[in-house]
């Protein structure tokens, strides 16, 4: 009987995981919806966006990221200044509190792909590896697309 219950529990769990297909995950951190903008020439930094969900009970911190697509990856934040202008600055780390989802999306947080190693064209896929204080490294594939 316990065996049957275990099986049922496992199947439920797998169905739930199946629903989250396409997410990169490690421990309680799940990264999804990763995409990057097409490059605008090799001299300019690219940008990538994704969604980080902390499904665990403990706070985590995004410490940085790397990608074979760029020499350096920085996390930046775009903010509205007092005069209504928008400014962009690198941030050292990004808190991902327990139970919360942090979205890197246009006009907010984004990954800067600095010194691209190649053109990024619509339809390409690039890998991005995120480094978390608790969850360790999580690698996701980001599709290159327009907005």
């Amino acid at each position, binding site marked *: 009987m316990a065996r049957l219950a275990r099986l049922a529990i496992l199947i439920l769990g797998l169905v739930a995981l199946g629903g989250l297909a396409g997410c990169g995950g490690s421990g309680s951190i799940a990264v999804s919806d990763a995409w990057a903008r097409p490059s605008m020439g090799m001299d300019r930094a690219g940008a990538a966006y994704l969604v980080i969900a902390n499904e665990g009970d403990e706070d985590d911190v995004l410490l940085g990221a790397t990608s074979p697509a760029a020499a350096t990856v920085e996390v930046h934040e775009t903010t509205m200044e007092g005069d209504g*202008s928008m400014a962009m600055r690198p941030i050292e780390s990004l808190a991902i509190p327990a139970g919360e989802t942090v979205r890197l999306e246009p006009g907010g947080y984004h990954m800067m792909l600095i010194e691209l190693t190649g053109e990024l064209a619509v339809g390409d896929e690039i890998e991005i590896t995120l480094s978390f204080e608790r969850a360790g490294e999580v690698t996701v594939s980001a599709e290159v697309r327009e907005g």
Partner: protein
Amino acid sequence: MQHAASDAAVDRRWAVLGLGGAALALVAIVVLAAWAAVDRTAGTADADGPAGGSSGEASSYAYPTVVPAPPLDLVDHSGRPFDLADLRGHPVLVFFGYTHCPDVCPATVGTVNRVLGDVGEAPRVLFVSIDPERDTPEAMAEYVRFLPDGYVGLTGNDVQVRAAADGYRVSYAKVETGSEAGYAMAHTAELYLIDPEGRLRFHYPFGTGEEIIAADVAALLAERS
């Protein structure tokens, strides 16, 4: 991952995994249902709201007072002097940015491109650099190459660019951020719409939906004919 110490621990872990997974699935269903409900509500609100695009009326982003569009005495991406009067007869979308801007400016470009796709007769688009240090006419030409037809890249010297920006009440400043990508430019990220008579008619905050802008462009075209 810790090693399980006993059968009891294993049982607990299986239960947690299964229940956690089921809970996640439940959350996903609830979120999707809520999302769909919000979409439906938002759709209705948009159609009735003051910024409604489908009615053919001007959006709430119209300037209360209509004035001639401030001049843009700059050079285009071919290095030729630009004259806004040359675009008389066409709606013109204008925004200020810089080509090393990876987040805000491409988002605006994306919005504009969807407007171009939505409107039968495409407006002309002016991308005005507020980063004259890096954005030479050559740099603008390279950037415009990645954009659809109808874009003109504009730049100039410090004085010209400042004068152009002031005309549209655009503020900008160089920000040394310590990024490997070099300095950034803080700048006003609104989009402006000039009518075919050369008058400044609308200004849209960053993030305004393309359907609102496209409806205003269509209204300007209807006004003309």
